[in-house]
């Protein structure tokens, strides 16, 4: 027996995969580990393995998990910057082929007070009333714009700005474009110009000062300027109401089955047939539920001030599930990092390590279940709108920009009416008493977002830049005008 065992043992050993030592894992959260509940932050993950291998890095943050397949060369350090939901505890699991599973935990400090990020090279104290100040070094600033959601205001000096990497600068510019509240201390003229030209909300949230005190004072003054409120799903309920596309299909299949069952019971008394009809019907229904393609839907809603250079958008990508099980939702490139619109819902987001971009999100879903991914971002826009009230309940809408407008819709006084296409410099005179009740969901949403006593102009947008956008995707740009301009 022993003679047989030795070759078997040798065979088993030769077939065993080469053992790889446990990977070295290092975590570096953005904002020195500070964030706010329900926001997004970023965690840097560095993984190093002694031998070439592949595997996955998974970060669990509350109900959200981000999974990244990775390939490592021998001795190579892989660096990932992963946007994650702000949770009190981040659990990172690194699983590499042939290596023991490596687990790390990262505790985040979640502040109930608004956070002020302070990036000052001389580490001088900075305070803003009502804010919790967090001292930062350049490496603490995130590489992705989404993580800027963790802080409510930021003060940076020129030395810190100069020390930022290009990806950090790009994210900072993105934050300025998203109406982020930023105070700069003695910024270089070039840096200031770049940030000011990119800033959203008419650059009202971007301030500068020659000293820390001056920058903080202006930042304090900017708090009196209300930040633009992004439309919520409730504001756009009419536009986002899920279409029951699966329900009619299920009704049709069950009605067909009952029809066949009644016919079978009418025309035959064969037990075999009467037993087989429901069994075959069940199999057919199960197969149909499994193979039905869920119909995705995309709604993009953008808003811009009358002469702003940047529009802020929110996008909702929704799918009505057709079966019980895992539902993969492809992430639409070009809309930014996605999050589950329902923060209480478990979601796993798959990242592409090479591009550093999310590629898919999967949910546990069931028939008739409605899952949605939310995106937010901004894009350059140029709609210089001037509205002048005239005698007799008329208004003049003037295109003061350099680009022509397509035909759109004017919302005012609880009614909507068509707005003709306008060339640069031209205007249209509209009678407010000719408005009519909104006929579609977009017009209803526009009315819901129209300032009280003001106006709003609504245009449909083309989604050329969104790869793989669903065929029936809709996108809208709303320009609310609070008062005559």
């Amino acid at each position: 027996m022993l003679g047989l065992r030795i070759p078997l043992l040798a065979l088993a050993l030769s077939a065993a995969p080469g053992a790889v030592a446990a990977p070295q894992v290092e975590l570096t959260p953005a904002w020195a580990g500070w964030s706010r509940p329900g926001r997004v932050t970023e965690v840097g993950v560095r993984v190093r393995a002694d031998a070439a291998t592949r595997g996955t890095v998974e970060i669990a943050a509350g109900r959200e998990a981000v999974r990244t397949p990775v390939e490592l060369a021998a001795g190579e350090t892989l660096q990932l910057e992963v946007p994650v939901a702000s949770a009190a505890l981040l659990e990172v699991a690194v699983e590499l082929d042939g290596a023991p599973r490596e687990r790390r935990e990262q505790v985040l400090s979640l502040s109930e007070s608004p956070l002020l990020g302070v990036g000052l090279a001389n580490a001088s104290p900075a305070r803003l009333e009502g804010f919790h100040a967090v001292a930062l070094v350049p490496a603490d600033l995130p590489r992705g714009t989404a993580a800027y959601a963790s802080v409510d205001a930021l003060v940076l000096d020129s030395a810190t700005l100069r020390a930022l990497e290009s990806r950090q600068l790009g994210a900072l510019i993105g934050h300025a474009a998203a109406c982020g509240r930023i105070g700069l201390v003695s910024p270089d003229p070039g840096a200031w110009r770049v940030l000011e030209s990119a800033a959203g909300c008419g650059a009202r949230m971007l301030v500068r000062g020659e000293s820390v005190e001056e920058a903080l004072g202006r930042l304090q003054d900017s708090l009196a300027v209300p930040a633009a409120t992004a439309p919520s799903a409730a504001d756009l309920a009419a536009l986002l109401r899920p279409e029951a596309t699966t329900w009619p299909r299920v009704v049709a299949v069950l009605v067909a089955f009952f029809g066949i069952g009644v016919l079978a019971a009418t025309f035959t008394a064969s037990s075999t047939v009467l037993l087989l009809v429901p069994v075959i019907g069940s199999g057919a229904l199960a197969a149909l539920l499994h193979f039905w393609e869920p119909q995705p839907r995309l709604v993009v809603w953008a808003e811009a001030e009358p002469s702003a250079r940047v529009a802020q958008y929110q996008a909702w990508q929704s799918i009505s599930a057709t079966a019980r099980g895992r539902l993969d939702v492809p992430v639409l490139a070009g809309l930014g990092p996605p999050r589950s619109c329902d923060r209480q819902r478990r979601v796993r987001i798959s990242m592409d390590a090479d591009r550093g971009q999310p590629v898919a999100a999967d949910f546990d879903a069931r028939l008739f279940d409605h899952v949605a991914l939310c995106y937010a971002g901004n894009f350059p826009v140029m709609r210089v709108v001037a509205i002048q009230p005239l005698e007799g309940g008329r208004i003049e809408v003037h295109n003061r920009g350099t680009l022509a407008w397509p035909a759109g819709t004017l919302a005012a006084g609880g009614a909507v009416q068509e707005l003709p296409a306008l060339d640069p410099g031209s205007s249209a005179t509209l009678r407010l008493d000719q408005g009519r009740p909104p006929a579609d969901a977009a017009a209803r949403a526009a009315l819901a977002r129209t300032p009280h006593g003001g106006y709003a102009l609504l245009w449909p947008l083309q989604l050329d830049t969104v790869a793989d956008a669903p065929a029936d995707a809709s996108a809208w740009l709303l320009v609310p005008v609070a008062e005559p301009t």
Partner: protein
Amino acid sequence: MSAPVTSRLGMLLGLAVAATVAAWWLAATRLALGQSMGTAGIAASALAGLWLARAMLLAPFALRAGALGGWRLGAASSLSMVVAAWPVVIAAASAGTRPATGIVLAEIALVIAGLVLPVAGQALRTLLRAPGPAVLAGTVLGGALAAATWLWSRVWTGGPL
């Protein structure tokens, strides 16, 4: 009652129960979707109701069918009644969150009951030596079983209907 009538009656009873529950479930689901509400609870209620209705019908029906036509005919017609609702069970299970194992076990219990109760019905006929008293006894016994099923439904279905 002739054998063909019993077979068809089982199937039609099962279809009627399934159609009633399906109509309620789909209508309630449509309303919930319109209100952006969850539909899993409705599906769970539909599954529980469908199981309970079949279980309560099955007891007197299978005993009577076994007493009248013997266990083969009784089993065939009882199983027709049970399986007629399976497409609705599949759809509702797909829309719910209840574990699939529990749903499958509940259906297996109905199938076993659909096989065993007709045997009991035939035994009643053998014991009482006449179809009339056997059918009456089967009806009474089935009614008692249905009542017991109703009383114990909270335990058997895992929650209130």
